[in-house]
């Protein structure tokens, strides 16, 4: 299978601090790629570079055959990237349904005038997209909290809603930033199932940052290991597990 995403020699700095140094890796179409590494390894920054929240100083990201030095987040979304955030970025003033509906905004073609008058196309779009959203709600089994304000939901469910919001955009590639952080075992199991199903049954390429090594080894096809902004491992889960640098990084050998 071909590479859907190529990260080449990316370096990202904030002021004088290097968050990422010269990182390259490829993500194949249809795989689950996990990016792992200790805290502060630059994982989230990597994701932010991929979908254009941060602009790298050096390096390019090739997505879907187009090589770019930078992309803005909106264009990334239009090109079929969707993502979730490490510290849940749901819209706190809205309920679950509305939050997931925002994920469909690129499918809404009617003008604000039509929407304000609630006529024709606007009304119909609201119905059609609601249907798409409802399918995701069913998929994630969150029917019972459909109209609950997200601010009232427990953490685990918020993560699930955020996944729903990304998923409903019908992305080609899904970027998940610590989808299982702070969850209990049962919630982790559910989330793993959802991610696997999204990947295997809907064929959506997934790039995921995750701390839980058990989960990573279980569900990912490909693992990239970062440490202090540098890549120290890249390969299948078993290869990575055998890599001495990775073991050192995780067991905390002094640098």
């Amino acid at each position, binding site marked *: 299978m071909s590479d859907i995403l190529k990260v080449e020699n990316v370096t990202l700095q904030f002021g004088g601090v290097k968050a990422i140094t010269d990182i390259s890796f490829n993500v194949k179409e249809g795989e689950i790629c996990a990016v792992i590494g200790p805290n502060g390894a630059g994982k989230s920054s990597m994701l932010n570079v991929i979908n254009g929240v941060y602009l790298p100083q050096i390096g390019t990201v090739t997505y879907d055959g187009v090589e770019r030095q930078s992309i803005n987040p909106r264009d990334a979304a239009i090109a079929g990237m969707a993502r979730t955030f490490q510290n849940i970025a749901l819209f706190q003033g809205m309920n679950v349904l509305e939050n997931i509906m925002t994920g469909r905004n690129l499918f809404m073609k009617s003008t604000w005038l039509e929407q304000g008058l609630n006529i024709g196309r606007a009304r119909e779009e609201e119905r059609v997209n*609601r*249907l798409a959203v*409802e*399918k995701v*709600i*069913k*998929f994630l*089994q969150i*029917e*019972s909290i*459909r109209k609950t304000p997200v601010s009232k939901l427990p953490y685990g469910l918020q993560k699930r809603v955020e996944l729903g919001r990304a998923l409903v955009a019908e992305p080609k590639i899904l970027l998940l930033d610590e989808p299982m952080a702070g969850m209990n075992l049962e919630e982790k199991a559910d989330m793993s*199932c959802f991610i696997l*199903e999204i990947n*295997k*049954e809907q064929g959506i390429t997934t790039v995921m940052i995750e701390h839980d090594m058990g989960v990573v080894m279980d569900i990912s096809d490909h693992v990239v290991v970062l440490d202090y902004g540098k890549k120290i491992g890249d390969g299948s889960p078993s290869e990575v597990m055998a890599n001495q640098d990775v073991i050192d990084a995780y067991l905390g050998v002094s640098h």
Partner: protein
Amino acid sequence: MATIPGLVLSHNNNHPDAVALRYKQLGIWNSYSWSDYLAEVTSSTNALKSLSIGKGSVVAVYGNNVPKLIFSISAIQALGGIVVPIHPESTSSELKKILSDSKTEILIAEDQQQVDTFLGIESECSVNKVIYLDGRGMATYKNENLNSFDDLIVKSNNASIENDINSINENDTAFYLFDEHEDSLYKVSHAAIINNSSKIITLNTLTEKDSIVSYLPLSIPTNLLFTFVTSLNSGMSLNLPESNQTIEKDIQEIGPTILYAPSFVFKHIITSIAYRIESANEANYNRYMNHYKSLMEIYNKEVSGESSLLDKIKKSWIMLTTFAPAKNVFGLTKIKHAFVSDGVLSKVNFDFFHAIGVEIQHSFGQAASCGCISVQPDHSVSSENAGKAMTGCEIKINDDSEVCFKTDCSAENLAGSNNSNDGWVNSGYVGKLDDVGNIVIDGRLEDMITLKSGKKFSPENIENLISCSPFVKAAVILGNNQDSVSAIVVIDPNSVNSWADRKNIRYTGYTELASKEEVKDLVKEHISCVNDSLESSLKVKRFVVLHRTLVMNEGEVSKTMEVMRKKIAINLKDVLTAIETNKDNCKVDDIDQLSYELDINKI
């Protein structure tokens, strides 16, 4: 001449556009008219035809109430097949037992969860094809016996099935129903179960304008009778909730006029009300308590016919300000008949529901009697009995105090074991008949406890009394061959949670909450109250607050939340031994592989 698919056909002829079935999916209520219903049954029938289902084929339907599963029941029967409804939460041993006893050939499973359970025991039964309704999560399954129902439907034609339906006989077997307590299957014919439901319909004048929500799996015989068959027979709409988490909200949205519920559901409503009011502010809490007291006083006057106009006004005020909102929340506002099966409500709760205008009608029945042998009439005020035998039924008590019945709508045990003399069937329950012939059920025969003193009693009465507290989810009474009676008490997580919040008790989880001294005192106080109403030899002397709830998946409670003593005796044998040997505490090695320390408290 009536058969299950025949009823569908006749409704289609009489009122094709009336709503037959509503189910919530993707956030909205979709409805099927009778003609849609027939069309769905037709396509399912044609699909199943391709699997060469014919007269006498046994097909299991395994899952929650989703429309496809409901349609396939009629479809199987239209081909002369026999339907075995299986509870979606069945343990694999139960599933194996049902499948092999019934010699099921084809299994229609709802989704991955059911398919997985089945695949675990695939080699041990005679099923040769599995049809699933929802293929989610099974894309990688390689088993060639797995088929998607949708694929079958696409491949099949859409021929009329009127001839198929007309060629089946009402005396053909329609269902094999599983009785959890007896651990055996019963053969139920179309005529038997339909006639039985007709009795309920005439007795309560149910019409096609009524509506009912079926939120429990149809494998529960009483549920099958009261919801599925009764709605088909009377033509009322059958409503299916969106998922198991949304039942409460869905019932509220529909606002059914008829409610069928095993007793645990009403118990749950009581607990939920308590849990809500426990977290109300002081003033509202106190007013609720006062209103509750006045309401019950007025109700008692009403029953004895002494209520004055002032009482009526007062009651309307109390209803408007305190109890109508509760009815609204649980969707009980429009209820005309509420049938209770599988256990009776304690007097307090029974009276409460009657007082707020939800007319509870106890019924008694099981698989052997096609779900119902007796039902209380409307406006009955006694909480103890389960009504008189319905027309065509007779009830007597044999020498062992066991309830025996005879009915024209009987079901035959597949193993043929309890078909006793002259058509009298032993129900497996002990009970008595009161002066006017109402049947009073005490409990299951096999559960009877004999104390060392030789005193024999049914634990269920005491269990009912203990669990009528909103803080108690369940209770198990022990005492066989012992000096005194003991109890294992399971507290209700929700209501005790909010009670604890109110009392500023800190805890991290259920297990810790259950071990709190305050909680033990709460339980102790309640049991002491219960003891006051018990004769001295039956007073509960010791109790244990269990560190977890009872688990249906383990078979510790039945599908209708009755305690299953045999299984509990195995899973919690450490507790039982400790109580038997008069210890003060015990160490439990539990099913989750962890061990817990429990105190045995004395009263």
